[in-house]
């Protein structure tokens, strides 16, 4: 039985990378089939296979780390770099949509009535539900930090309480945003105002759902004793992602909701 003379993780052969790529193919071609031929089957297969691959790939990572002990400090460092780079790439993704918003809103064309918000658009009151949503995400930033400190101090009950509160706040935000979307007096097809508003807040909302799901998985792992006071990187990654989602919302709120109204 050979033993490695380094602290890196040489993973077992795995089918998930290539099956994940195939799932991406099915999802994208499925979108095309749905848009142009009104057939949703390929898209459904794509989304289902994507979910299955994600579930099994991340399940395997939990097995490799918590159950097999492969996540040495060296490996953890690599994962930290990876998460930082990923979040940075997401920041650039949102930067693009903010660029589009400022491009159209700083110099509104005659077609919009030479003003922002454009003629005929009733923007949402920033002091109404959007302000509540801001408070919710800020509070969830506090609770996730509380949970982190509880984990580091080996306080199981408080960690579970704090992380549960965080997840509930995340779902509360999503529910309120869904209601706002339903009740809004303008839609995505209402000119460039509608486009910039719904694409920016829409992608943000998707990231809130992703972040809430990540935190929920961490909560389940926390309950199952996977985290130790010194080694809980999965939780830290989820917390970083969650703070990122919060910061993006603050930018959205100040620029699109407040300045743009």
């Amino acid at each position: 039985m050979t033993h490695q003379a380094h602290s890196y993780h040489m993973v077992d052969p795995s089918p998930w990378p290539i099956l994940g790529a195939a799932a991406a193919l099915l999802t994208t071609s499925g979108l095309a089939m749905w848009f142009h031929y009104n057939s949703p089957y390929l898209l459904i297969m794509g989304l289902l296979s994507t979910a299955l691959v994600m579930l099994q790939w991340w399940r395997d990572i939990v097995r490799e780390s918590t159950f097999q002990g492969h996540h040495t400090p060296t490996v953890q460092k690599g994962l930290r770099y990876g998460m930082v780079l990923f979040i940075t790439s997401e920041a650039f993704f949102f930067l693009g949509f903010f660029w589009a918003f400022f491009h159209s809103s700083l110099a509104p064309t005659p077609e919009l009535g030479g003003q922002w918000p454009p003629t005929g658009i009733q923007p949402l009151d920033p002091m109404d539900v959007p302000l509540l949503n801001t408070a919710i995400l800020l509070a969830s930033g506090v609770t996730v930090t509380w949970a982190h400190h509880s984990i580091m101090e080996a306080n199981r009950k408080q960690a579970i309480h704090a992380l549960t509160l965080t997840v509930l706040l995340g779902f509360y935000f999503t529910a309120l945003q869904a209601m706002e979307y339903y009740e809004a007096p303008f839609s995505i097809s209402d000119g460039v105002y509608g486009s910039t508003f719904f694409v920016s807040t829409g992608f943000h909302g998707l990231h809130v759902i992703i972040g809430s799901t990540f935190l929920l998985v961490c909560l389940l792992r926390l309950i199952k004793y996977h985290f130790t006071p010194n080694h809980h990187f999965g939780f830290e990654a989820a917390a970083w992602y969650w703070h990122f989602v919060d910061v993006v919302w603050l930018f959205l709120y100040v620029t699109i909701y407040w300045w743009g109204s």
Partner: protein
Amino acid sequence: QGLKPLVPTESPAPIFGTSKPPSVLPATEAFLGKNKVPDLQKVFQRSDGLPVHLKGGVPDRMLYRTTMALTIGGTIYCLVALYIASQPKNK
């Protein structure tokens, strides 16, 4: 001095130490389930030569086969659909 205590100075029969010791009380032992990580560590460190994605036994195999079937089947469907979609529309 000289005052007789009205209350007996002898303490009554002890009531402390008669309840169950903490280790017997279930509430303090485990909050939301007990720690099964050591057992799972034993399972996933067995030298059975299985890769990590199949090391959990039958449920892993079922999930893997379902994912494989869906993905391979879907890819074939995708290629057929793209072939059909690339045919010119005959007026």
